[in-house]
């Protein structure tokens, strides 16, 4: 005879500790749960609202400079260290966790325009309008750093005077070369008093330079003749150059995609290029209403942060046309430099109001230790929100950002101007012979030509 019994193993239902969760058994038959989609939609909506509620991106401001912050450099080897320099020649090392100055690097006579740190985090290179390049030895981080309030000063390890003022400097990834931009592009070695290589293409001065993190011998520069140029140090020659309609203020290479770079342009847009095919941008990132001053990629390569002259910081996805996030405060002035922290969790901005500001890269992210269940919940919320983000209610909440009035107004004006341009174009096309008026796609519109 067959007897059906309920079997309930004690092992399955007994908790090891009283803090353990009771095991819950589900029947996953979808016919038992006809409302699952509705439930998830509601959850998505709630998640979107919660995200808005918890969106508090501003972590803190670092106050200490006496002039506008002109440039920053992050220590690639030490998360808490960030270097910043101001227009009065002051260079400081900050401890991000305590948000205090650790030490200062006095010596520059004019504005410091470029700052970079070697990959091992031992050497800081600074250059500026006083025509000098200075090398500093970075102090080892010790435990007392955060507690010591007295600021110590550090003497430069080397000081090289050169012929022209400098606009930017960048250090090679895992090497001992660094490049300065000024009247021309110069490559320096740590141990030489004069540049080991010098490049000039055209007569205009170079305003920004950035080494490729994946390919240490390739670097990109932008010049005041509105050009972007890629150089290869091994061949000691330039490779490509394009001329755009407006000047490029800064360049950033994607650390996870060594062939791709993004240029922060004066016209308020950023242009992502493929280094192999520069005659057309891969993506145009629009949203800023004024010149983009600086750009830095997230180490994950999925996002980049930009600082703009319109007093805002924005975070863009690497392949998205519009920003994911805008950060602004009432007191933040023109942003001159931005950096993404090495763990892709924070964003730093330096602005004209002499302050460095620390932001969370994800506005509603929970900081601190997160328990696994909490983490799972966050992930679920995120996933559900992501799934229903196209539906109007969720979309509205997720996309909503409060904008400062000037930016809001400027956006309106830009929209109007673009609309009228498009209208005019449409009319022109409608009233001329078919095929006579060819419109360039947006991705090529701002590129004048590629120079051979």
């Amino acid at each position, binding site marked *: 005879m067959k007897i059906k019994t309920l079997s309930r193993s004690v092992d399955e239902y007994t908790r090891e500790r009283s803090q353990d969760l009771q095991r819950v058994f*589900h029947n*996953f038959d*979808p016919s038992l*749960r006809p409302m*699952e*989609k509705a*439930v*998830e*939609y509601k*959850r998505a909506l709630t998640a979107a609202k919660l995200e808005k509620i918890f969106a508090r991106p501003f972590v803190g401001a670092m106050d200490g400079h006496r002039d506008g912050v002109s440039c920053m450099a992050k220590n*690639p*080897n030490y*998360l808490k260290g960030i270097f910043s320099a101001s227009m009065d020649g002051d260079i400081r090392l900050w401890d991000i966790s305590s948000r205090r100055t650790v030490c200062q690097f006095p010596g520059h006579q004019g504005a410091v325009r470029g700052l970079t740190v070697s990959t091992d985090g031992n050497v800081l290179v600074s250059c500026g309008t006083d025509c000098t390049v200075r090398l500093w030895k970075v102090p080892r981080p010790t435990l007392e750093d955060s507690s010591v309030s007295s600021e110590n000063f550090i003497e430069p390890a080397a000081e090289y005077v050169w012929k022209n003022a400098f606009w930017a400097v960048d250090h090679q*990834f895992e090497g001992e070369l660094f490049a300065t931009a000024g009247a021309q592009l110069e490559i320096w070695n740590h141990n030489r008093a004069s540049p080991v290589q010098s490049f000039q*293409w055209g007569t205009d001065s170079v305003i920004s330079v950035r080494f490729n*993190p*994946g*390919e240490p011998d*390739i670097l990109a520069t932008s010049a005041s003749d509105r050009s972007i140029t*890629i150089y*290869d140090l091994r*061949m000691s*020659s*330039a*490779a*490509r150059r394009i001329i755009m309609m407006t000047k490029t203020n800064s360049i950033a290479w994607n*650390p*996870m*995609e*060594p*062939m791709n770079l993004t240029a922060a342009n004066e016209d308020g847009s950023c242009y992502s290029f493929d*280094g*192999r095919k520069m005659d057309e941008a891969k993506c145009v990132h629009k949203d800023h209403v004024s010149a983009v001053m600086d750009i830095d990629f997230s*180490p*994950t*390569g*999925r996002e980049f942060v930009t600082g703009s002259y319109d007093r805002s910081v924005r975070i863009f996805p690497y392949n998205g046309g519009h920003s994911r996030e805008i950060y602004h405060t009432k007191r933040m002035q023109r942003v001159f430099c931005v950096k993404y922290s*090495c*763990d*892709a*969790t924070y964003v730093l901005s330096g602005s004209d109001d002499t302050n460095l500001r620390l932001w969370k890269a994800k506005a509603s992210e929970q*900081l601190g230790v997160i328990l696994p269940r909490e983490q*799972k919940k966050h*992930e*679920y919320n*995120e*996933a*559900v929100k992501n*799934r*229903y983000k*196209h*539906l*109007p*209610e969720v979309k509205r909440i997720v996309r909503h950002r409060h904008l400062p009035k000037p930016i809001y107004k400027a956006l309106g004006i830009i929209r109007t101007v673009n609309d009228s341009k498009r209208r005019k174009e449409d009319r022109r096309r409608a009233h001329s012979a078919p095929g006579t008026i060819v419109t360039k796609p947006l991705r090529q519109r701002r590129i004048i030509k590629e120079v*051979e």
Partner: protein
Amino acid sequence: MGEKRRSTSKTLGKNKRRKGPHLPNSILKTIANEKRPLNSDEEDDEIDSDDAIVDLYEYEEGVPEEESRKNNRYDPVVNYNYELPEDFEDENVESDDDDEGGNSDNEEGEGDDVVRHTRMLQAVTGMPSAAFDGESKRKPVLFTEAYPESEFNPTRDVLEGKGLLTIDELMAPIEGKPGFNELEKRISRMQKDAQAVVHAPLPKPERERLERKAVKGLVDKEFNKWVHMVKRNREAPTVYFNQNVSLGYSTVGAIASEFQPRTDFEKKMASVLNDNELGEAHDEDGAKLLELNEVSVEDQIKYRDHIAKMRSLLFRHELKSKRIKKIKSKTYHRLKGKDLKKSAMGALMDPEMAKEEAMKQEARRVEERMTLKHKNTGKWAKRMISRGLNVKYDGTRAAISEQLQINATLSRKMNSTNDGSSSDESDDEEELNDGSDQDTPSKLIAKAREKTLKTVEDDEVPNSGLLSLPFMARAMKKKNEEAIEGGKRALEEYEEWENSGGEENPKKTAVVSGRRVFGATAKVEAPKESRKDSDNFYDNSDSDNDTEGIENNDLGAVRDTASPARNTGAITETEFDDDVENPASKTTFDVALFASGSWKKMKGCQNAETKKKLKKHVPYSKGQDKKESRDDESEDSESEAEEMVDGILTSASKETYEIPSQAELIQRAFAGDDVVDEFEKEKQEVLNQEVPEPEKPVLVPGWGQWTNIQKKRGLPSWMVREHEDAKKKRTLDLKTRKDARLRHVIISEKVDKKVEKLHTTTLPFPYTSKEVFEHSMRMPIGPEFNPATIVGSLNRPEVVKRAGVIIKPLKFEEANPNEKVDDEHPRSNQKQNPKKGGKTGKGQSKGKSKQKTKA
């Protein structure tokens, strides 16, 4: 003639160079006065030095527009130049006298030049300077051109490709000179050796361009090698950046291995743990451990003593209980029992006692529930609360709250064993109701009879719990008697119904007609009605004829009362509705309730007409007045006709009855039904709801009515216009509706806002088809709907990183040719770290290769 040419050349030069801004004459004059040429070059000075005339900036008339071809008004001419005939020879070539003159200026520097020239020749040829002496004495004949010879102005010889100097020509004059042979040899050697010829370097920009072209290719190649990694990263559903994190020690073992004993105790422990002997003993079989295990004498003694103590205690307890059991004194046991009873433990021990206790508790509960003694209903409590003293004094408040507490504990429902009966009853009722809705009438009747029988038989009085109380018992008894009586009657009725069996149909209509009551009565005499209702129900069970009589009487009476009061006399089934909604049965007995239920069912099944009407009525539960639109007369006649039918039918049960034809039946059934009209009305209503009619403009009383003139004017024109516009708009809207031309269809165009929010207006960006987009949201991802094993992977974000972990830029890895092997198992591979994936890929490839070799 030479002078002439020179002057022409000069003017030519002037023409070339003196193009400048077209200045007004006055300015030109001042410039001339200052004797400063505006754009004088060095060459200018050179040329002008011999004439030394005041140099005037000549104003040049611009070329007329027609000639400058700015506006192509004339036909284009291919070539403006005058075509010279083929045999034309330039006379200029032969004329050399002017050159002689021109050259006279340079004679001063001649001497130096000669010396230098010979020196150069010496260096080139390696021959003594004497060889060239003769040459230097001869005056060289020089041809000068109008412009210095350059790449832009080559000599005519060069242009024509003739007159090129060859080495032989150069060598001819020095033939026979000392060292000539040697030189000739060298030259011939050079001519043979074509490889050694060095070409002139390319211009710098050209050179750089070529260089860049080469570099471009190399850089592209460099970039291309990353493509596979980038592709993999981009296509991965999740990218991991939290791997390879060394946060010091990761395991307990690792931490423990670093442990150094510091204190004495730790050292002692360490010495034992690291004891070689002990370790060996452990490793072998453990037998040696026994030898090592020394137990001290003191410990052993302590343990033994403890056991002995425990034993003696147990023994003593046993003795005591025996002694107590032996005591025969009743007083003692009574007192002991009391003690036990007092304690809650006692109740737990003895089942009888527990029962008693429960009874008492129940009684107390009932009393409490009836009197609400402890619910602050007492005089004292009321006074305290009314004066607010309970707020003021803690003691009072405590007392009051204590009372409430007592009330709560007392009136709490107890789970005694005898409680079930009442709940069972209610359950049965529910069950019955449910059943009555679904079953067929015959079944229902059978069921009902069964039920009634059961209740009739089952008249035992519960002898415990709440119902065992005397007053309750009395009430129960009375109720039971009633119920039994009613039940018996009901049984009879059921029998009759069953007997009538096949002719259920007429029976039912009769019953229905009997139930029909006019709305007037329902409204006027509601209380009486309900009483009558229950009454006539029981009467109903006696005999059909009787019922009918009563009903007819009733009907007549109602009609008498109603007709003078209202002329409408419309039939309303509110009575019926009332009956359904708050039936008298609720108050009477469950059999009655059941009966009414069954009756309702029957009615619903059988009488199509009433059903129709009922349906019509239900939505307009409030709008009873609307029904008055019905024709009074026809209604009356109809009801009468029905009665007649009833009469016939009741007789037909005994006599022969001819079944009417189908069409007739239908006609009769839908006699008063104008379905089309109904539908039109309904449609109109929907239209009015969706496209509401504009409100008629109304003046607020008192406004615009101050004077006669104002009154005469009527409504302001703008109001009228607005109204007209709204009306027009409405008609237009109605016309554009989808169902405007479909007479028998209502297509609602109301937008459901709740549904709208679940739709997107356009297809979102990454999706290319609607189906795919919908599919992406089909399966839920929550932990409630999925097993725990896949929830993690369903919800995983695109980028997994950890705060505080530095992310390094991408490191180059060679493309793994065995990647495709991994793709066969995407499920296992897709969530892996790219780096890890590479490693596992390698591992797999190894495995594969092994397998291959085996095969």
